[in-house]
Every structure is written in structure tokens, then in C-alpha cells.
């Protein structure tokens, strides 16, 4: 069974996530992850042994535990040995690997999961260790300060103002009131938010994501297997990821050409395609939503982060996978026929992944086998 592009059809057939919290400190990583794995497998009726390929995303630096992903593998029943892979990245990239695996015909089903216990360390400091070790690492520039440089660039360029940023924060956290998995929900109005002191000028506390412990899991399946496992598969009609220069001083921080290119390659702008009804954007900082809206050409017809987005819960390494899961869930529930999900990695939106999810019959040509 192939899609119009001559590619195998692959869909998200199940998604589960933790109730995200500031510190899951009574649980080890595998203990935090396991209920999510159970939930996502149970909803498809598949046993762990029936999954053809398993791919996970996590980062040992978050909790300071070497090879922690091998412990997490206990939760999927990895013995006797299963076909398995791991990326030291957000689970969205693990999902990309699993998608490719299914496209090649090597697998019919895949389990993707990711998790992070950021609470174990000082996250903004831990994230300095992902930077260039020659020119940036020795200065220990924390992630909040780097995001603030990007926000300042946007303000100076007239691309946004502090009121709009506060509006993004308020809208996101109000939307999270309907999301039982969110860590933060509800927000004072924009005027009240703007009275608060700066955290890292020009960012105020509301512009910054919470520190979150959490996990997420997705099951992918091909063609008729997907149709058998769920009533309404969320077909991945396209997915791509692109990266920009590492040095923030080389990039135009007010734009995201990598997001634009990934979206183009994922088919988001295909002629005749309707605009997405929903966009789940991995914009941990308010100003980054402004950059992504522009790159993805989103207008008011698209609901951005109806889940609350990463401003409501930001489990590092899972937050991007959650975006794909949330977008897919909207399609599967019949609330959207076309949705776009985005995931990011690195400082100031350095690397970006875009996935387009569609219900049956939502594509440009309108028909599927």
C-alpha cells in the first residue's frame, strides 16, 4: 500500500504521555516511563513483542546518569534482544528514524518513546554542554540567556513586541487548562503579566518554559496495519528535519530557514493543500513562536498549540515528540483533517523538524487507496 508520492503510508496510531511535573523525584526514569509504554501499547492491543522496531530519544546529561537509556529499555522488554535504536536527541528524531525504517519496508510497526528528568540538575546550565566547546562552552551561556538574545533581536527588528509575547504566554497557558497532562495551566491577563520583573531582559518569567520531568510514547504503523490498529490513523504525509550553523552569531536569529525548508520538504506548502487547522510548535520561549509562525506561514486560520505547548510543559527530550503526538491526536479524534507538528533542538531554534499529519482524504489530491 503506497501513498500518492509512491511512498509507503505510515501513521501515528497511538500516543501517550505522563502528567508532566516539576520533579518526578520518587520515580526512576524507567518507573516514570513504564506506565506510558503500557498505555500506548494497550491502546493498540499490541504486546511489546509484536513491535517490529523500537526507537528512543533521551540525554544522559539531563539527570547525569551514564547510559540511562539502557535502563529505560527494561521497560519495553528488550530481552531476548529486540530490534532497537536510540538517539541522543528529542524523541521526534527517534520518530523520524522509525518512520524511515517503516518506509524502507524493514518494519510494519514501531514504538517510539522519549523521556527526561531535567529536575535532577540545573537545566539551563546543563544545556550549555551542548554548545561548541571551543568558543561557547567555556563561557557557560545558559539556555535562557541565549533565548533572550533571540527575543531581543526580534524586538529590535520590529517582528514582535513584549505585549505580543505576553499574549502568547497567556494564550498557551489558558489553552493548557483543557490538557490534563500540562504542568502549568491558567494565566493572568497580558497587562498583569507585563507588570512582572524581567527574568533575563527582555524575557519575563512568563516567556520561559517550566522545568519539567516527563515522558511520551507513540506507536507508528504502516498502511493496513495502521487501519487495523485504530479507527482513524493520523497519516504522516511528510516529515523532514534541517539544521543551521552552530554559531548563533552566524545566523539571522529572527528567521528560521531550516524550519521553512523542512516544512517545504514535508509538503506543508504543497499546491492545493489546505492550511493546517492545528499547529503544535516546539517553541519553548514565547518569541520563538513568532519565528516559527513566519517560517511555517501560519495565519489565524491555524490554532497554534491548543495543548498549551512547551510553555505549559517542557519535558526536554520528550517535548518535540509530544508535539507530534498532540497533533496526531487531534487528527485521530476528528478535530483536524490536517495538522503540522514541529520539534526543535539546539540553541535558538538551531535544528528543526516538521511533520505533516493528515486524516484519510485530507491531502492535496484528496484521495487515498
Amino acid at each position, binding site marked *: 500500500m503506497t501513498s500518492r508520492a509512491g511512498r509507503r503510508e505510515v501513521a501515528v496510531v497511538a500516543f501517550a504521555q505522563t502528567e508532566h511535573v516539576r520533579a518526578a523525584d520518587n520515580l526512576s526514569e524507567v518507573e*516514570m516511563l513504564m*506506565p*506510558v509504554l503500557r498505555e500506548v501499547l494497550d491502546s493498540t492491543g499490541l504486546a511489546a513483542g509484536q513491535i517490529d522496531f523500537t526507537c528512543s530519544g533521551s540525554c544522559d546529561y539531563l539527570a*547525569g546518569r551514564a547510559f540511562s537509556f539502557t535502563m529505560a529499555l527494561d521497560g519495553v522488554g528488550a530481552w531476548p534482544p529486540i530490534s532497537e535504536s536510540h538517539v541522543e536527541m528529542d524523541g521526534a528524531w527517534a520518530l523520524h528514524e522509525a518512520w524511515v525504517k517503516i518506509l524502507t519496508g524493514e518494519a510494519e510497526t514501531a514504538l517510539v518513546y522519549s523521556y527526561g528528568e531535567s529536575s*535532577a540538575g*540545573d537545566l539551563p546550565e546543563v544545556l550549555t*554542554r551542548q554548545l561548541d566547546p*571551543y568558543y561557547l562552552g567555556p563561557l557557560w551561556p545558559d539556555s535562557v540567556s541565549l533565548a533572550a538574545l533571540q527575543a531581543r533581536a526580534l524586538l*529590535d527588528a520590529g517582528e514582535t513586541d513584549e505585549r505580543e509575547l505576553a499574549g502568547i504566554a497567556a494564550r498557551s497557558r489558558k489553552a493548557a487548562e483543557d490538557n490534563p497532562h500540562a504542568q502549568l495551566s491558567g494565566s493572568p491577563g497580558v497587562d498583569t503579566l507585563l507588570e512582572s520583573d*524581567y527574568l533575563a531582559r527582555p524575557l519575563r518569567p512568563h516567556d520561559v518554559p517550566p522545568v519539567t520531568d516527563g515522558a511520551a510514547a507513540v506507536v507508528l504503523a504502516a498502511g493496513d496495519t495502521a487501519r487495523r490498529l485504530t479507527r482513524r490513523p493520523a497519516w504522516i504525509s511528510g516529515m523532514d528535519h534541517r539544521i543551521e550553523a552552530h554559531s548563533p552569531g552566524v545566523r539571522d536569529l529572527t528567521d528560521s530557514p531550516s524550519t521553512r525548508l523542512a516544512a517545504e520538504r514535508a509538503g506543508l506548502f504543497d499546491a492545493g493543500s489546505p492550511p493546517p487547522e492545528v499547529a503544535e510548535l516546539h517553541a519553548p520561549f514565547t518569541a520563538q513562536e513568532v519565528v516559527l509562525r513566519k517560517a511555517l506561514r501560519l495565519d489565524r486560520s491555524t490554532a497554534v498549540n491548543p495543548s498549551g505547548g512547551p510553555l505549559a510543559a517542557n519535558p526536554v527530550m520528550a517535548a518535540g515528540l509530544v508535539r507530534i503526538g498532540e497533533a496526531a491526536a487531534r487528527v485521530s479524534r476528528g478535530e483536524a483533517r490536517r495538522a503540522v507538528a514541529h520539534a526543535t533542538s539546539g540553541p535558538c531554534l538551531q535544528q528543526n523538524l516538521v511533520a505533516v499529519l493528515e486524516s484519510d482524504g485530507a491531502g492535496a489530491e484528496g484521495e487515498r487507496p
Partner: protein
Amino acid sequence: MNAAPSHKVLSAPLVVEFPFTRSLGPVQSAFLTGLRERTVLGVKASDGRTLVPPTEYDPVTAEELRDLVEVGRTGTVTTWSWNDRPRRGQPLRHPFAWVLVRLDGADTALLHALDAPEGPQAVNTGMRVRIRWAEHRSGAITDIACFEPDDSVPSTHRAQPHPGEFADPVTGIVAEARLDYTYTPGRAQTRYLDALTTRRTLGERCPRCHKVYVPPRGACPTCGVPTGEQVEVGPRGTVTTFCVVNIKAKGLDIEVPYVYAHIALDGAGLALHGRIAGIPYDQVRMGLRVEPVWTEGGRYPDHYRPTGEPDADYETYKELL
């Protein structure tokens, strides 16, 4: 979370330190050596731009870059943010601005700190700044102590070709890093550690395959399900396999040779490690029955010694090898 907390959570500080020794490419070496000599070098990219800090490869085409140029020590702030609470390792101890600075003659910006004693009101994009050199310079990005405000006019400084050759060039850096964590072992290991304080060994049984894991990690890796049921195992057990250690470990006050063994505690579904004593090393054998020996205040058994029981039959432990 999906389950209620069951126990007082154990936690302990965990410090991870890793001094990475990194070698430098020719462009990085010239740039960092130049900083030591108060000279700022950039590199010409294939599109004609001057990259500062310079890279070994072109950010667009990935071509190897080698044409070095010298740029100014003054520049213009292209964006900034205010840091009220400097963290460990950051360039200044008092509040400062992070800045991206485009040095005169460069086309890209360098990240560093700006010392702005008058506070954020005195900082703006477009302001002129100059390098404040560190007193002791070794060939590192921190040879620039920080930037400071400068009243020069935007100069028309043109990047000048530079051979990039210095006496005694820097060829590597040591990147020291320290991260502080709070380690929490989770519920299964907390129960295990709590039980050890009363000299009991707690395993957890898989509800599906019934294997008892010691120490428990909270999940059965074969079935992929939580192991909720606690089972006390031992204290006695059987040596399943062993080795004779002939090399004295640093800081360990044990005479060699000694025996280190896999011991299957009675009731456990897998073996754990322990030292065997109270028997000559060359008489230890597979199937030997042993029991733990605790020392005053010990948080785990110091070693295991023979119980004097007859050896266990191979059939009883062959699955635990």
C-alpha cells in the same frame, strides 16, 4: 505522575566532572593563539564574508576555509540580554549583559559578556564596545575577559590578510566541566536500599514470568512490566561462578589473591556480585554455599563466607549462570 509516592525519597548529591582535552584545527589554533597575543583573526568564507569567530569549514558550503584575516578589537552589539544572576563559570561575577558583537571588519558576531556597570539601561543594540583582555592569557575564548563600552565611531576597518602564524601556537584546549545533580534512585531502589539498612535483601518479582530481580530496578526487562511485589531473598546463597583477583585495586585494603564471585541468593532470579572470604582462595568452587558477613555500620555485606552446608547441585543454579 501516574502513581502515588510510596516512600520517603532517597536522594544524594552527585557531581559529574569531565575535563575534555580537545585538539584544535589550524583555524581554531590560529584564532585562539591570536587571542593570547591580543590579535583577533577571522576567516574568509566562500561567499566573501569574514567569519569571527572563525570556523574550519564554511557554514554554507562545508568547504575547508584557510584564508585568515585580522579584524578590529572594537565592534558593534547586534543583540543583547541582561543576566542579573551570573552562574558559575560565566565571564563576570556581577550582573552583566550577554552580547553578540560584530567586530569591525567582521560580518558575523561573537558571543561574549559586556561589563555594563550602569545596568541594562546603558545597553542597547548598535552600541559600540571594545575588548577587555584578560590579564593572564593562555589561548582560549576566555582570553577576552569581556567587552566594555567604547565611544569610538563605527569604523570602516577592513579585514587585513594575516598569516596566522605565531610562536608557540596553541594546539589544544582542556575544557573543564562540572555539573551538579541531585541523584534520586527511584522507588524500587529506594526500597532495596532501605531494606539493606536492616541487613535484609529485597528483590522484586515479575508478575508475568515470576523472576525475582535483585537489586530491583522497577521493571522486568524480559516482559517489560513493572515489578511491584517485594520479596525478601537470601541471606544465604550459592556461588554460581567466580574469579581469582591477583591485582591489588587502588585504595582497596584487601590482600590478593582473593575471590570475587557471582552469588545467587536463595529465592533470587539472578546473581549479584560479592567477595568470598573465610576460605582459601583456591578452594572456592561453583556451588559453594555462602552467607553474608556484615561489619559494624556497613551499608551492605562486606563479604560472603562459606556456610558449611553441602554444595548446591548444579541443576539448581545452572539457569542463573
